[in-house]
Structures are given as C-alpha cells and as structure tokens.
C-alpha cells in the first residue's frame, strides 16, 4: 500500500515514529509527472538535492530522455528515502521553455544570440586586455552555492593561480560564511563537528534562529518522528516568528531582533552560575573559559530581559533545558547569521557546547548550518574567500604546499590579504578598480542588500559583466555576455551537505540547446586563456568531472577535508559518505572531535582568529601564545546595540527570510507549478497587535519602506513578535512585466529593496535582518488574502476567510514505508 499525500498541503508527510537511540526508519517518497507510472520509467539515475543544504539523496526518473519525476533513496544516511516539497517538485523547472539555450552578447545595448565562439572570444579578449592594462586585481569572480565540487575547484585554480586574482567569492557569503567563521573561531578549522544522526540520540534540541521545518524539511521530519516516538526530545526555539518549530517547542523565546548575543550571554551566565559545567572537558580541551565567565558574570536573565524583551523567567527555563540536557544538539542558522553580531552570537553557541562538554558523542553536537546546498564545497575548494583545502592564507607553509599541488610559484597565489569577500568586490566594482565580474549561478540583482545600489553597479558602462546561468535572470539583464549553463540532472559531479556527507549526482538527461555544464565552461576558458604552471605545462590538467574530482583529491590530501579515500565508484550505487575519508577512516567519519580537538594546532589551523567586534585579524604569534597546544577556543563577546534602530519615522524592525516553498531567487522554485502556486507572490507579515493598532487587516495592500527603498505586498496577520515585520526574501522581477526591477508601473517586490548594506565584521556576512522600517496602507484588501502559505510560520492568527494552502492532485506524492516496500518487492 502506498498512501498518496498532498505534499503542498502536508509538507512533511506521514510519521514513522522512532524512539531515542533507534535508527530512523526509511520512508520512500516518490513524485512522478501526471500520467507516468513507476513501471514506465526507463532509468532511475542517482542524484541528490541542490535546493537546500541537506543534499537529500534521490533518483531521477527518466523516460525517453526526459526527466519525469524523483524518488528518495532509502539507503541514504541523510534522508532515508524522504524528500521535501522542493525536492519533489523543483526538478520540473529544468524543462521550462524559457531556459537559455544559446549564448547572448550585448550588441548596441541589446542582448542578442551568438555562438559559443563569439561569446567566449569576448570574455577572453576582455580578460586579456584587463590583465595587460590593470593587472589581475581588475577581475573578480562571484559564484554560487549550487554548483558542484569539481566546478568550484576548477574555478578556484583558474582564478587564484591562472588569473592570479584575490577576488573570488560565492553567494555562500550570504548564507554560510558565519557558520564557517564560527567553526574556525572555536575549533581553528571549518567542518561540522556532528552528524544528522545526532537527532536520533539527543534529549534536548536547541534551534537558534533556525526554522528547520522550512529550511531543512527532511530533517524536521526526523525531529517530528522522534517527537512521536518513545522518549522524545525537548525543543528550545529561539525565533521571533511562530514557526512550526516554535509550536512544538518546550520553550520558545522570541527576542527583539539584533539581540542574540545578549540572550546567549544570559544563557551562558545561568549555565555557569548553576555550575552545570563539564570541568574536566573544559580543562583538557579548551582555553579561554575564565574570560567567558568574567564576561557573562553580570549578564543575568533580568539584564537580558530588558534588552531582548523576553521574560527573565523564560530565559531561566531555557537555561535549565540547556544545562540539564544529557545529550544536547544545537543548530544555528540565518536568525543568527544574517543578524547583528552574527559571528559573536554563533560562537557563543559553540561555547555552550564546550563548557558543557557536549561534543563528539552521539546526540551531543552542534550544527553551524549551511544555507546553500553546496556551500560546504565553496568553503573546501577555496571558491568563497578561503584557500583550497582549508589552508591558512597567513601560513606560508600552507601557501607553499598549495603551490606545490598546483606546480606554481607561491607568489602566483595571492595571499597578501584575505581573499576579497563578495560585498567588497561589489564595492571595488563601484569604485572602478574591478572592471570585469564573472557571475556564475547566482542572482545578485535580487539577493544582495540595497538593490538599487547593486543595479547601479551592474549597469555601469565600464564594468564588463559575464553571467552564467540557466535563465535570463534579473542579473543577466545587465550582462555583456550571457553563458547558458546546464544544471543538476544534466551534468555529473559531487557535492557535500551540511554534515560533511558527499553525494554523487549523475547526469540523467541532455541539457537544452547549446547549454553546457559549468565545468566545461570553466575548462574552456582556462584552455583559451592558456594558463600555464611553472614548468610551462597546462595549469589545469583535467578534462571531465571524474578527473577534476581526482585532482581535488590530491589537493585535499592530509587536510581536514580529506577526500583521498573516496572515488566515484564508491559513491555510485551506494549512499553518501562523510569526509574525511582516507587511510585512517576508509568508510568516512561520522563525528569530528570524538577524542578532543584535532585541527586547531597553530601549524594546522585554517585561520588565526579574528576580533569578533572589529574583524581585525590575529597574527600567528598571538594565536600561538593564546593556544599553543591547539585546543578549542572559548571566545567571549560583549553585546552591542544593532546599527539601525527603530525611529519615529521607521518604528518597526524588518526581518527577512526564506520560506518553505521557495528557494533562493525562485529561478527554479518559481517555475515549478506546485511550489509557485503555494507562495506565488511576496507578502508582508505583522503581528495581530501591530495590525490592530494600525487599523490593518489580512489582505490589505501595504508598503514597507526603509531609508533604502520600498516594496509592496499584501498583509498577513500572524503570531509574529510585536514590533517586527517579516518579508520573505528573494521575490524578484523575472515574472513581472519589467523582468528586471521595479518601475513606476511595477512596485518594489524584492525584500532587498529595503535591506541595509552592513555585514558582520568577522564573517563578512551581510545583515538582512535588522533594518528599521515603516508600514503604510496602500489600498484596502478586496477580500483576497495575502499570498502566504497557511502551513508554515506564515499561518494566519485568524484563519477564517483564508483558505488553507493545498496542492490538489498535481501535488500528490506517494510515500511507502520500508516494510511495505519489502513486501512489494517480495511480490514481484
């Protein structure tokens, strides 16, 4: 029996309860296009999701060279066959009729079709000109969090050693750079300590600014299954919105936006005051405890209550939960990373685990989550502001080692300063020192803050813009050359999820028209530019995904993210494997730091740390004296007020975020009918109190304005914390009449029209969550409710009149438990 479930109306599907310390039972989710039966599928091709950071393993169904559906992989450790709504329906976007099928070049101000020869010729001749006139610092690369490992690595080699530029970053800067920085600050090195299996073992799960139900729906299914099973965990939720997590939490704290450090300092204060500390762990494995204890001494719950506007008693309850946990699992995401004092706050969560000795055992783990699906690979491969293989740009031995791998002189690889972060690259372009920007797989004209500024930078005559993407995005409108790319399902490669699990994703169908895999485009560019190593041989010696993977393995050897024991053969047919995989750990590594801290030694560590307030870099000497033996570092931080506070003119705090049915700038999810129908347009959320005070109701058309810009949307009244407005981010303009941005006839729609240009000084992650904003009525509603889902944190407080979000027959997917699957296979 295969129950069929509307996975828009019931996004998490049915429960398969499991008790504590029991393995999570499989449940295989399948969605096939209308009229296609399982028996008609000619091939099932192994893949994994790139629509969020879980990397849910799945098989793509192929009929006559077309994708016709997906099915979860029951054997996989990450999802045990389950798929989220984005996984189930997102694949349809691949076949959209508006895919780019030929390169475009700008002629007389307009983009016109061209062949690859012409398009690449222009990119290469502009690159050569700029290298000759201005040097490598005039060229920058801004990539994605959705390409494959092989592609990032190739890009990193060609940018850093071929061009020799320091300007290479990914949009992972917007979603995951704080995770990486927080891990480096505490453990000296990036790499998630825990494993998703920790969900099966924890007795307390604390989610800090992490709406896991919408951002990682499959792992939320796992939590839900535990909540229904024996000995369920208790949840702590820190979030200003009434998320599905908040509804199931034992304690929910909804602090004022921008006050995370104050709240965490109070939680640490309580844990230390009640002496719920693993003194042995602190002594053996950490440095810096005394400073933390001194720093939080005055941070009482009453003190924090004043700043965060949550009851002190609730903070005490939360601290009890954290302090009495036997196996504590914490997760952190954008509510912390895209907010004020991002790194400082994320590091305090690490501190909580260090002082409680909650690391390296089943159920005791910390997740500094990733937003983007292949974010981990940009970090490992050095495509996001780090050097490949977690090498330390300040450590000459590391740079020499990298130069040896690439067979170039160390001076070829820029390492006089940290790799330039994304927002600084746009600043250099604004000033005119960067003259060429190659944007691959991302859409900054929607996703970066203060969009009018970003549009004016991209529109500059002197800036040569190359855009490599699937569709004519808002950003592509500004390009001088547009390169049509193949995507997931149309190319082969590997990628790594938030818990270090590496998956292989195979090519299932041909890309449309002349679209090419990103890897082929980068290799073509490298060949045309004729990049050479120091002996005159070609700098890039590989030619396809598997040979690129083998090259990466050599670069990762003996580094923490060691892939040397992996191969395409091992990944194909089986399940994902967690790095490091090498001689000592041939089957992969489930948890890091099981026997103390491994990679923080001064000779090994990925960076020497930064000042959490100023971002000033510490030197090797300072690091050595602070941490000579390479222990974990407990780093205290004082609370600072946010940079933009509400005023009389802008009385609200505006926060933005991702929601269940859309991903990134909706280039794919907006083209998947079921996902688009569930959340077709932007909306604005306000609390019932604030709406009543302003005389506003469900469905009223409102304007949100900040000193940077405005947007309009219909109002949804929810259980959000008073004083806050929420707008889902990344609604853009490709599906509006202008196609590119707001105009007199098309009001602002993207949340980033309004967000502030400001970033965390340590991680350089932009702040998308602390703008001060005003809310005004544009037009009374006509009875149409806001286009916001009712199944999520956007659920209306007064449900009458708002129809429930459902998907109808087109959104049905089957789910079959492992047992019925066995019998069925037995039947055959």
């Amino acid at each position, binding site marked *: 029996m295969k129950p069929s479930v509307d996975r828009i109306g019931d996004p998490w599907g049915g429960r398969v309860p499991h008790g504590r310390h029991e393995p999570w039972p499989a449940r295989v989710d399948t969605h096939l296009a209308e009229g296609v039966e399982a028996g008609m599928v000619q091939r099932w091709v192994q893949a994994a999701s790139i629509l969020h950071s879980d990397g849910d393993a799945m098989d793509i169904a192929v009929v006559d060279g077309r994708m016709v559906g997906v099915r979860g992989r029951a054997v996989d450790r990450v999802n045990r066959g389950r798929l989220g709504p984005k996984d189930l329906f997102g694949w349809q976007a691949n076949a959209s009729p508006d895919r780019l099928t030929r390169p475009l070049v700008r002629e007389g101000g307009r983009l016109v079709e061209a062949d690859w020869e012409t398009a690449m010729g222009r990119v290469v001749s502009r690159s050569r000109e700029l290298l000759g006139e201005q*040097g490598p610092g005039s060229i920058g690369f801004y990539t994605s969090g959705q390409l494959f490992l092989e592609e990032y690595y190739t890009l990193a080699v060609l940018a850093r050693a071929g061009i020799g530029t320091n300007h290479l970053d990914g949009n992972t800067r917007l979603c995951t750079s704080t995770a990486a920085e927080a891990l480096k600050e505490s453990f000296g090195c990036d790499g998630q300590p825990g494993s998703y299996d920790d969900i099966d073992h924890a007795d307390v799960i604390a989610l800090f600014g992490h709406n896991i139900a919408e951002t990682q729906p499959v792992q939320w299914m796992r939590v839900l299954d535990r909540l229904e099973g024996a000995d369920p965990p208790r949840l702590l939720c820190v979030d200003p919105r009434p998320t599905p997590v908040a509804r199931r939490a034992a304690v929910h704290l909804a602090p004022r936006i921008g006050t995370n450090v104050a709240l965490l300092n109070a939680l640490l204060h309580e844990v230390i005051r009640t002496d719920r500390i693993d003194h042995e762990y602190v002594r053996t494995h950490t440095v810096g405890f005394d400073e933390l204890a001194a720093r939080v001494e005055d941070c009482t719950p009453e003190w924090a209550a004043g700043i965060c506007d949550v009851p002190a008693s609730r903070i005490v309850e939360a601290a009890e939960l954290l302090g009495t946990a036997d196996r504590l699992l914490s997760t952190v995401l954008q509510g912390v990373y895209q907010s004020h004092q991002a790194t400082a706050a994320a590091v305090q969560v690490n501190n909580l685990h260090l002082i409680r000795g909650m690391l390296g055992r089943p159920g005791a783990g910390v997740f500094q989550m990733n937003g983007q699906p292949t974010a981990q690979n940009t970090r490992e491969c050095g495509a996001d502001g780090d050097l490949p293989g977690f090498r330390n740009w300040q450590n000459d031995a590391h740079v020499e080692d990298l130069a040896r791998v690439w067979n170039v002189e160390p001076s070829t690889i820029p390492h006089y300063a*940290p790799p330039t972060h994304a927002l600084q690259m746009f600043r250099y372009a604004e000033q*005119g020192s960067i003259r060429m920007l190659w944007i691959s797989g991302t859409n900054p004209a929607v996703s970066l803050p203060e969009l009018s500024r970003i549009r004016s930078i991209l529109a500059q005559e002197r800036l040569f813009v190359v855009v490599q993407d699937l569709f004519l995005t808002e950003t592509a409108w500004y390009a001088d050359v547009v390169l049509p790319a193949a995507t997931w399902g149309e190319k082969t490669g590997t990628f790594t999820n938030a818990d270090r699990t590496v998956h292989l994703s195979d090519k299932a169908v041909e890309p449309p028209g002349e679209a090419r895999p990103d890897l082929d485009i980068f290799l073509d560019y490298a060949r045309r530019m004729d990049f050479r190593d120091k002996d005159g041989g070609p700098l890039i010696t590989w030619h396809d995904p598997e040979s690129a993977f083998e090259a990466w393995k050599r670069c990762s050897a003996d580094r923490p993210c060691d892939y040397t024991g992996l191969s395409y053969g091992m990944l194909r047919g089986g399940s994902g494997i967690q790095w490091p995989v090498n001689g000592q750990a041939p089957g992969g590594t489930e948890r890091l730091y099981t026997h103390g801290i491994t990679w923080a030694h001064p000779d090994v560590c990925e960076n020497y740390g930064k000042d959490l307030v100023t971002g000033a870099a510490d030197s090797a000497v300072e690091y050595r004296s602070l941490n000579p033996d390479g222990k974990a570092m407990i780093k205290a931080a004082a609370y600072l007020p946010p940079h933009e506070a509400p005023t009389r003119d802008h009385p609200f705090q505006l926060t933005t975020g991702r929601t269940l049915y859309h991903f990134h700038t909706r280039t794919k999810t907006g083209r998947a009918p079921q996902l688009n129908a569930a959340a077709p347009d932007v909306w604005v959320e306000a609390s019932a109190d604030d709406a009543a005070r302003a005389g506003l109701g469900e469905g009223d058309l409102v304007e949100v304005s900040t000193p940077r810009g405005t947007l309009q949307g219909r109002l949804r009244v929810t259980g959000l914390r008073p004083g806050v407005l929420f707008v889902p981010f990344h609604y853009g303009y490709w599906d509006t009449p202008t196609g590119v941005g707001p105009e007199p006839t098309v009001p602002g729609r993207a949340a980033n029209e309004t967000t502030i240009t400001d970033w965390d000084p340590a991680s350089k992650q932009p702040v998308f969550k602390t703008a001060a904003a005003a809310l005004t009525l544009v037009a009374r509603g006509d009875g149409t409710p806001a286009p916001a889902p009712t199944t999520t944190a956007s659920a209306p407080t007064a449900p009458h009149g708002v129809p429930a979000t459902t998907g109808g027959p087109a959104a049905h997917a089957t789910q079959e438990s492992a047992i019925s699957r066995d019998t069925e296979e037995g039947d055959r």
Partner: protein
Amino acid sequence: MNGIKLALRTLHHGERDLVDDLMKLSERHRTEHEIHHVATDVAIWSREHVQRLADTATHYDLDLDGPPGNSSPGLFAALRKKASEVTGNRPEPGLLLLRDLRETHLAATYNSLHWEMLAQAAQASKDTRLLALASSCHPRTLRQMRWTNTMIKNLSPQLLTSL
C-alpha cells in the same frame, strides 16, 4: 603625583581626539560600509575611556570633561556625508580612506603608549585604582589599533595598484 596628572590629562585628550577621528572616519567614508559601522562601534569604547578617565581624575584633584556629544552630527558632518556619497563611485577616495585610516591608527597608537606609561606609573606607585583603569581600557585601544591596521593591510593592495 604631578606626572600621573599629566598622564591622565594627556590620555584624556588623546581619547577625545580618537573619538573625533573615528567619527570623522565613519562619516567621511559612509560608502565604505564596514569602515562606517565599525568606526562608530569602536568610538563607543573611546567615549567610555574618556568618561572613566574623567571619573578617575577627580581622585587626583583634576577636573576633566566627559565624552564629546554624539547625537547631532552637525552641518560639517552632513556635508561630509554628501561628499562621500557623491564621490563614492570614484577610485581616488580610496587614497583619502587610507590616509584617514593611517591617522586614526596613529592616534590609537599614541593612546596605547600612554596607557602603557600610566600602567607603569601605577605599578611603581602601587596605585591599584589606576592599574585597574589602565588594564581594563588598554586592551580595547590595542583592538582599535589592530582594526585600523587590518583594514589598511586588506585594502591597500587593491587601492594602490588600481590608480
């Protein structure tokens, strides 16, 4: 005793100057968003230092002012802000930025040396009040220096090679 008064006075002066430098840096370089925000954040430290120096000074028969006001940036600041926006998309302001960072760095270094002197004098005279003051303020002065130093280091390769 007079030497200590002198040191307090000099530091008080120096920290007030640094507040001024940092606020100028912040306003003049509004389009350098990180500079703008962090300069404002670390100016708070110097403001606090000025206040604590003034409080301590009363024990030494010395009357020093509190920190400079910060509420209205005034006409000049408004002009500087406009200027920073107008020139925000040209390369030359990069040089101005490096110069302002250098001046701020030197001002912080100057203060750091004086905190050092004050701490030494406090040790010699077994003055625990002074020692406590210096040891709680001096680390933040060092952080201000490290910040300006880091920014100069990170920005100068691009700004100086692109002219």
